[in-house]
């Protein structure tokens, strides 16, 4: 639907007007900013993700388990909270350099996690075979390990790109304009629908390019283990005299990615001049966040069930198209979905504009892929043969659904709903655009305080946002890569 809106709009306004809207120096600057930042951050997160993954998984670095937990921790800090932490600590953090540092530190776990998961699944026998054929460690890494890591590495980097294209809060705080921040500014300040939508069209195109890349990679992904038998862990590489310098480097990444936001947040909580703890307001924001997130989670998970059922049990081109189209939505920035729903509701059904229902619909569009991935994993654990056995034991279709299928997919329904719940709790962009007047969520309250430079007032909300994100991070760490690779945009 959001895609159809943007496409229809672009067709309707015609090529000449579209050219007028887009062929402006400002647009060229935005395009340059967006692409430069995306490329730089994708490269940096790829290098950082692989290096950290190898250090933690394949060497004798002291305290590897602890480092792993700390290196994933940035996922629990929404990027806009991280941006706030840096900006509020040091005003000089802004522009390209600031955006590059903050975004890289926020998003490198998107590469690190799948790389680590892939390293764990890699059969060490492959490397041992290469060594036995006379390859050195370095050559084995280049010719055997790296090609196997490629899907995880590129998939992760592309996700960083998609997240970055959708990022509004952090880049707005860091005063680095990209398409997403510009669309919001256009929408907020001038309510210039035409310009905003034309830019949204360019943003969607950029996202689709990345999505195509991701789908292509997903298609030829191979299983890392061949054959049966117990998997063994790889023998860790002894770092020798590099041990302490490398430990220092990992420590530095953790200090910057986790230490800085933690320190900044604590400082504002304890010492901020504008810091206050208006319990009633905090409670109200938390309450409305929970209600919205709960409703959104239930609606989204229920919507995922038929999609998954068709895709798993009745495979065919139609069910594949339906399932894939939800993934396209995953690549759409919240701002595009928000904008599409604002315009579509105003034109078609004005009565739903600025209602909680419309906001929940936006959440469902944005987060359906996550529910689909999780519920799908559950339904695949309930193979059709179990239905056959239940039928042979006298259970009809309804009884089989009640006694076999539902109990088996219940945990994944729960996990899917939990993931969506937590994603909605920290969603900023669509919430800012669509929330009904007077509705205050943790994210909108945080935003109104921090964008007015009342950093202390924003701190309690930031803390609550981080606390709400922690369970999702733990859940994602425990799940296998496919879900971990599908973090929210």
């Amino acid at each position: 639907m959001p895609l159809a809106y943007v496409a229809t709009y672009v067709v309707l306004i015609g090529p000449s007007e579209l050219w007028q809207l887009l062929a402006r120096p400002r647009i060229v600057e935005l395009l340059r900013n967006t692409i430069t930042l995306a490329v730089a951050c994708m490269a940096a997160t790829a290098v950082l993700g692989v290096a950290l993954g190898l250090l933690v998984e394949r060497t004798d670095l002291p305290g590897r388990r602890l480092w792993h937990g700390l290196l994933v921790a940035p996922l629990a800090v929404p990027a806009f909270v991280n941006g706030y932490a840096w900006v509020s600590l040091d005003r000089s953090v802004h522009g390209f350099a600031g955006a590059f540092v903050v975004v890289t530190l926020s998003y490198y776990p998107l590469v690190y996690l799948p790389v680590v998961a892939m390293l764990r699944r890699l059969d060490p026998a492959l490397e041992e075979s290469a060594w036995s054929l006379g390859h050195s460690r370095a050559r084995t890494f280049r010719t055997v390990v790296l090609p196997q890591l490629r899907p995880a590495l590129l998939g992760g980097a592309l996700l960083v790109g998609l997240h970055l294209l959708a990022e509004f809060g952090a880049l707005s705080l860091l005063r680095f304009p990209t398409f997403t921040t510009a669309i919001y500014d256009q929408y907020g300040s001038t309510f210039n629908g035409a310009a905003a939508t034309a830019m949204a069209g360019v943003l969607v195109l950029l996202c689709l390019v990345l999505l195509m890349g991701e789908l292509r990679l997903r298609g030829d992904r191979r299983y890392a283990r061949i054959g049966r038998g117990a998997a063994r862990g790889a023998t860790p590489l002894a770092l020798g005299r590099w041990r302490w310098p490398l430990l220092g480097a990992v420590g530095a990444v953790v200090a910057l990615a986790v230490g800085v936001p933690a320190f900044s947040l604590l400082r504002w909580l304890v010492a901020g001049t504008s810091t206050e703890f208006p319990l009633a307001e905090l409670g109200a924001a938390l309450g409305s966040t929970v209600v919205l997130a709960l409703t959104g989670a239930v609606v989204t998970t229920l919507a995922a069930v038929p999609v998954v059922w068709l895709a798993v049990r009745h495979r065919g081109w139609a069910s594949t198209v339906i399932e894939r189209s939800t993934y396209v939505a995953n690549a759409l920035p919240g701002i595009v979905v928000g904008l599409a729903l604002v315009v579509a509701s105003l034109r078609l059904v004005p009565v739903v504009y600025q209602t909680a229902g419309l906001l929940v619909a936006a959440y469902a569009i944005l987060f359906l892929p996550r529910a689909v991935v999780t519920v799908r994993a559950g339904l695949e654990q309930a193979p059709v043969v179990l239905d056959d056995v239940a039928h042979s034991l006298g259970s009809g279709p309804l009884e089989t659904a009640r006694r076999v299928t539902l109990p088996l997919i219940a945990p994944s329904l729960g996990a899917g709903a939990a993931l969506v719940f937590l994603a909605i709790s920290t969603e900023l962009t669509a919430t800012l655009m669509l929330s009904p007047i007077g509705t205050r969520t943790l994210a909108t309250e945080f935003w109104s305080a921090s964008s007015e430079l009342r950093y202390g007032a924003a701190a309690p909300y930031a803390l609550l946002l981080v606390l709400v994100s922690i369970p999702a991070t733990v859940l994602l760490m425990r799940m296998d890569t496919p879900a971990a690779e599908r973090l929210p945009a």
Partner: protein
Amino acid sequence: MSSLTLTGVTKSFADTRAVDDVTLHVPHGSFTTVLGPSGCGKTTLLRLIAGFLVPESGSIAFGDHVVCGDGVRPVPPQTRRVGYVPQEGALFPHLDVAANIAFGLPREARGTQSGDRVAEMLDLVELPADFRSRRPDELSGGQQQRVALARSLAPQPAVVLLDEPFSSLDAGLRGSTARAVRRALEVTHTTAVLVTHDQNEALSLADQVAVMRGGRLVQSATPSEVYLSPSDPQVAAFVGRAVVLPGIATAAHATCALGQVVLTEPSDGPVSLMIRPEQVYVDLAHPEGERAGVRGTVEEVSYYGHDCAVQVRLADGTAVLSRMSGVLHPAAGDTVHLRVTGLVRAYRPAEAP
């Protein structure tokens, strides 16, 4: 329990005829194995009996009760009273052993009173009573298969169907699990059909072996009959190893590269002779006279401990395989004398491929 009768059962998928005009009778309380290579239609046959698939033509009856065909509306699987044991057991992962076994019992028997039946079934499949509270992932593959059998037997089905139930087990476990399953089926006088591609399993477990090829049933007989008197040379080659030699038959005898052999049935003219390797006797001494046999040179010896397979090349270039005791055997390059013991099956050219 009841007998099972299939009459002219046919089932196609797109252009492929998976099951082609199969007629088979499984007597009450007996055990039939359906043996055939992968893709021969044996699993489809099992799914037709279970009611997961409906045949295009033909009928299936449990005793006198026709469950499909003959103008009868197909009885759905849940009311057919079949016990189904798929590959790898397919235990319900969210239920413990007791709840798995009690799954098919009537609702009132499923609760507290299910205890006796569960204990009885665990005992039947030779598992300790304290396994009742274990979860499927705490069981080995063989234990899972025994629980799956107990689950299928608990509601006292008319027929039990086993779909390659031991194929995922390793060799040692396969034998012991198969024997336990056989004993449980015997004790309960259950009519059972097991499909497999493993000839050892098929021959050692069954009262009757039904051999399938390309969707058709090519022979159904006792295990020894299938082994010693296969319906055609292809069945002979599929069920065990076979030496097939051309020969000339004259009444009860035939002459071939291994000399004169005695036939199971009289024949005349050119024939193909099917000789099992264990019928080829390898004489390490060098006898003379009538017992001299045919001279040959040992090319290869595959030693298995309990026995060994000896490949011998005859003077006329014919290769012959012999299976003999592993205690005393020749070495490659030795000269040996071969002769055929027991009766030999002859096929007229029309029967041979």
